[in-house]
C-alpha cells in the first residue's frame, strides 16, 4: 500500500512538472518578459543586460529548473495588467473561489448521491423519472444560462437573494470568508447552485447507473437469497460498492469545479480566481494565466491523491 501511495505521489509530481513545462513555455515563448518590462524605447544593450539579469541567456533546461524552483516558492512573477506579484493577487482571490467550490461540491455531492440512490431504487417511479428528465435538461442547459435565469428569478423577480458578489466578508488573517456573515452566506447560494448543478447531475446519474450495475451483481442476488432486508442490501451492500467508481469520477469532477468556476464567477461577478483568469485572458496577462494553470493542477492533483487514499480506505483489496 505504501508503494501504491508513493507511486501515486511520484506520478502527481510528474504531472505537475509537465504542467509546469506548459506554463513555462507560455512564459518563454509567448509573453516575452523583455517586451513587457522594457517598453518601447529600449536599446539592444538594455535587452542584453536584462536577458543576463533574468537568466534568459541560459539554456532552456536551466531556465526551466529555475522556474520550477521559484514556482515552488510561490513566485510567479508580476502581473502585466496589475503590476503586482501574481502570487499576491491569487492569494487574495483564492478564498472566494475555494469557498464557492467547496459549497458547490458539498451541494453536488450530497444531493447527487441522495438523488442517485433514490432514482436507482425507484427505477420505474414517477418522481425518479421526473428527476432524471429534469437532470438531463440540467446538463443540456449551459451553466451561464442557468446562472442568468437564477438571477432573473431569485434576485430580480423575487428579490430573495443577492445577484452578484460575495456579500460581506470577514478577513481572517489573509483569508476572507463569506461564511461568517448572513449576507455572505446568502450570496453563496445562487452561485453554488449554478456551479454545482451540472456536477450534481453527473454524480446523480453516475451513482444511479453504478448502483443499478451493482444491484445486478451476484453478491446482491446472494444477499437477497440470504434473506437480508432491502434496506440492508441497498445501503450496506450496494451503496458502498457503488462508492468506489463514484469516488474516482467525483474527484475529477470536483477538480474541474474550480476551473468551471470561471463561468459562474463571470455571471455572478464573483471575485475569485476565475474572474481574474478570464480578465487575464482578455488582457493576455501571461504570468497570471501561467500561475492559475499551475494552481489548478496542484489542486487537481491534490484532490486526486485524496481520492486515491479514500479508495484504499474503502476497498480492502487495495490494502494488501
Amino acid at each position: 500500500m505504501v508503494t501504491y501511495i508513493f507511486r501515486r505521489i511520484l506520478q502527481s509530481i510528474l504531472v505537475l512538472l509537465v504542467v509546469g513545462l506548459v506554463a513555462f513555455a507560455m512564459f518563454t515563448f509567448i509573453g516575452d518578459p523583455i517586451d513587457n518590462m522594457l517598453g518601447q524605447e529600449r536599446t539592444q544593450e538594455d535587452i542584453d543586460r536584462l536577458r543576463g539579469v533574468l537568466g534568459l541567456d541560459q539554456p532552456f533546461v536551466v531556465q526551466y529548473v529555475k522556474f520550477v524552483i521559484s514556482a515552488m516558492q510561490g513566485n510567479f512573477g508580476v502581473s502585466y495588467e496589475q503590476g503586482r506579484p501574481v502570487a499576491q493577487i491569487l492569494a487574495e482571490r483564492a478564498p472566494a473561489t475555494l469557498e464557492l467550490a467547496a459549497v458547490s461540491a458539498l451541494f453536488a455531492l450530497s444531493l447527487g448521491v441522495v438523488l442517485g440512490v433514490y432514482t436507482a431504487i425507484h427505477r420505474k417511479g414517477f418522481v425518479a423519472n421526473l428527476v432524471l428528465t429534469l437532470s438531463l435538461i440540467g446538463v443540456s442547459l449551459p451553466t451561464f444560462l442557468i446562472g442568468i435565469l437564477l438571477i432573473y428569478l431569485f434576485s430580480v423577480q423575487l428579490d430573495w437573494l443577492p445577484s452578484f458578489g460575495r456579500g460581506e466578508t470577514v478577513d481572517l488573517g489573509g483569508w476572507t470568508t463569506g461564511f461568517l456573515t448572513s449576507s455572505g452566506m446568502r450570496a453563496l447560494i445562487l452561485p453554488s447552485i449554478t456551479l454545482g448543478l451540472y456536477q450534481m447531475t453527473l454524480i446523480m446519474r453516475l451513482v444511479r447507473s453504478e448502483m443499478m450495475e451493482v444491484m445486478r451483481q451476484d453478491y446482491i442476488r446472494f444477499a437477497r437469497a440470504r434473506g437480508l432486508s432491502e434496506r440492508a442490501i441497498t445501503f450496506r451492500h450496494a451503496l458502498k460498492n457503488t462508492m468506489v467508481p463514484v469516488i474516482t469520477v467525483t474527484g475529477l469532477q470536483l477538480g474541474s469545479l474550480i476551473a468551471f468556476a470561471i463561468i459562474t464567477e463571470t455571471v455572478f461577478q464573483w471575485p475569485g480566481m476565475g474572474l481574474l483568469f478570464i480578465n487575464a485572458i482578455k488582457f493576455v496577462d501571461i504570468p497570471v494565466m501561467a500561475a492559475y494553470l499551475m494552481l489548478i493542477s496542484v489542486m487537481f492533483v491534490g484532490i486526486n491523491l485524496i481520492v486515491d487514499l479514500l479508495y484504499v480506505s474503502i476497498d480492502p483489496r487495495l490494502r494488501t
Partner: protein
Amino acid sequence: MLRLTACTAALLILSGAAFAEKFSWAGTTDPQTMDPHAVNSAPVLGFLNNVYEGLVRRGKDMAVEPALAASWEAIDGGAGWRFTLREGVKFHDGSDFTAEDVLFSYERGSSEEADVRSWFAPVSEVKVVDDYTIDFLTSAPNPLFPDSIANFMIMDSGWAEANNTTRPDKEAGNYATLNANGTGAFMLANRQPGLTTTLTPFGGWWDTAEHNITEATFTPIENPATSVAALLSGDVDMINPVPIQDADRVDQRDGTKVIRGIEARVIMLGFGHDHDTLKYTSDAGDPNPFLDVRVREAVAKAVNVDAILQTIMRGSAESVSQLVSPAMRGYSTAKADRPAYDVEGAKALLAEAGYADGFSFGLKCPNDRYLNDEAVCQAVTSMLAQIGITAELDAMPVQNYWPELREDNFDMYLLGWSPGTFDHEHPIRFLVSTPNEEKKLGSWNFGGFSNARVDELLPAIQSEIDETKRQAMIDEVTEIYQSEHAYVTMYVQPLVWGTRDNIELTQRPDNFFLLRWVTVN
C-alpha cells in the same frame, strides 16, 4: 497588508456620522489605476476626482469654481496665471498642502511617462512664488487655462518621494497605482483591482461635506445584465451606465429610477490619415482608400445615424455634426448639418474615387467603453456593406484598445470624445491638430490628420480673447475638418444612470460621478 474589513471600517465611521449610510455603485470598467497622472481616461479621472483634487474644480453645473486654489488671476499681458492656494488644506495622511506639491504634481503630470502631459502643452514654466502662491506661465495668452486643468490633480510630494513614485508608470505600475494620498472628500480605504474599491470620508477635508456616506464601494461589473440585476435587486445603489435598452424598465420599476442627460461625449469614426496602405484584411498592403476625401465622404453618407439612434440608442441620443455637442462653448452653429444619409450618393463618390467594386479594411472598436459601442460598430459595418465596402470588425476591451490605437493598428476606428474644458478648442487641440510630441498637440489624433491651416489657427484660437473673432476662427477649423471629413461624427452619447429611489445625486454632463453630492435617504 493594510486592509480594513468592511465591518470594522463601518464601525469606525459609525461613531462620527449621525445618519451614516453605506453606498455602493457599479460601473462597466474598473479604473485602471489610482494614479491621477498615469491614464487620461474618463473612468480613471472621474473616479479619482473623489480622492484627489485640482486647483480648480467644476460645480454641479460644470462651472469652474475654486478648489485647492482659493482664487486665481491672469498675469499681466497674458504671460500666464497666478493661483493663490487655499491654506490649511491637509492630505489624507495628514501632511500639509503647499505650492511645493503643486509644482511636484505639475512636474509629474507633464513628465515623459505621464499620459496627461498634453494638458500642459500651453505651459512654459511653473514658478513657486511662496508657499501658497504659484504661477503657471504660458507660451501664449491662454484665457481658458484655468478651465483646462480641472482634472489636474495634486499629489503629495513628500508621500510620492517616500514611496518612490515620483513618476507615473502606466505599464508596470508602482505604489501610486494601488494607493492614493489626495486632499479630496474621500480616502482610498481598500483597493482590489478588478474587484472592489472602497472609499471612506476624509474627516479632515477642507470643504463642508454635503453627502452623508460613511463608506462607498465601487464594483466593476462587466456584464451589463448583471449590473442591472444588481441594481434591481438592491445589491448596489447606483449603476453607470444603465444599458440603454433597460432604461425604461429600470425607471418604471418601484425602487429604482433612471437619471438621464446628454453627455458631452461625441461618438465618431476615425481614419488612418497617415497610413499609406491598408493594414487589415485581404486587401492589406493595398493603397489606403481613405486617403481620398471622396471615400471618407462616402463613409459619412453611408452611415445612417438616425437608424442607430432609433434602434440601438432607443431615441435617447442626438446626432451631431461637429466634434462637440451644441451645448459646448465654441459650437459652430453655422455648421450644424451632418452629411445626409445617402447610399446612392455614397456609391457614386466611391465610383468616382475608383472604388466602384469596393474594398475591405479593418475596423477597431472597444466593447466596454461607450454605450453599446460594439453594436454601433456592427451597425456601421452593415451600413458600409450597403455601399460595397467591407469592414472587418475587431472589438476588444478598452484596456487593450488604447494601446492598439497608439500603435497605429487600425484602418478605421471608433472614438468618443468629451471636451474636458467644455470648449470646441479642446477636441481641435487633441484630435485635429497635427500630432506633435514636443508641443503636446494632437495626442489623441491617432490617425494623424494634418492640416496646416488648422495648426496655424489653433494657437490663435487659444489666445484670442474676443469671442466673435475666436468663433470665426473655430468656424473655419470646423469647415476644414468637416469638408475634409477628418472624422465621421455620429451622435452625442446619452448619459443614463440608474439609482435606487432613496439616492439623491447630481449627474454632471461629463459623466463624472462625484460622491460628495450623494445623499442616501
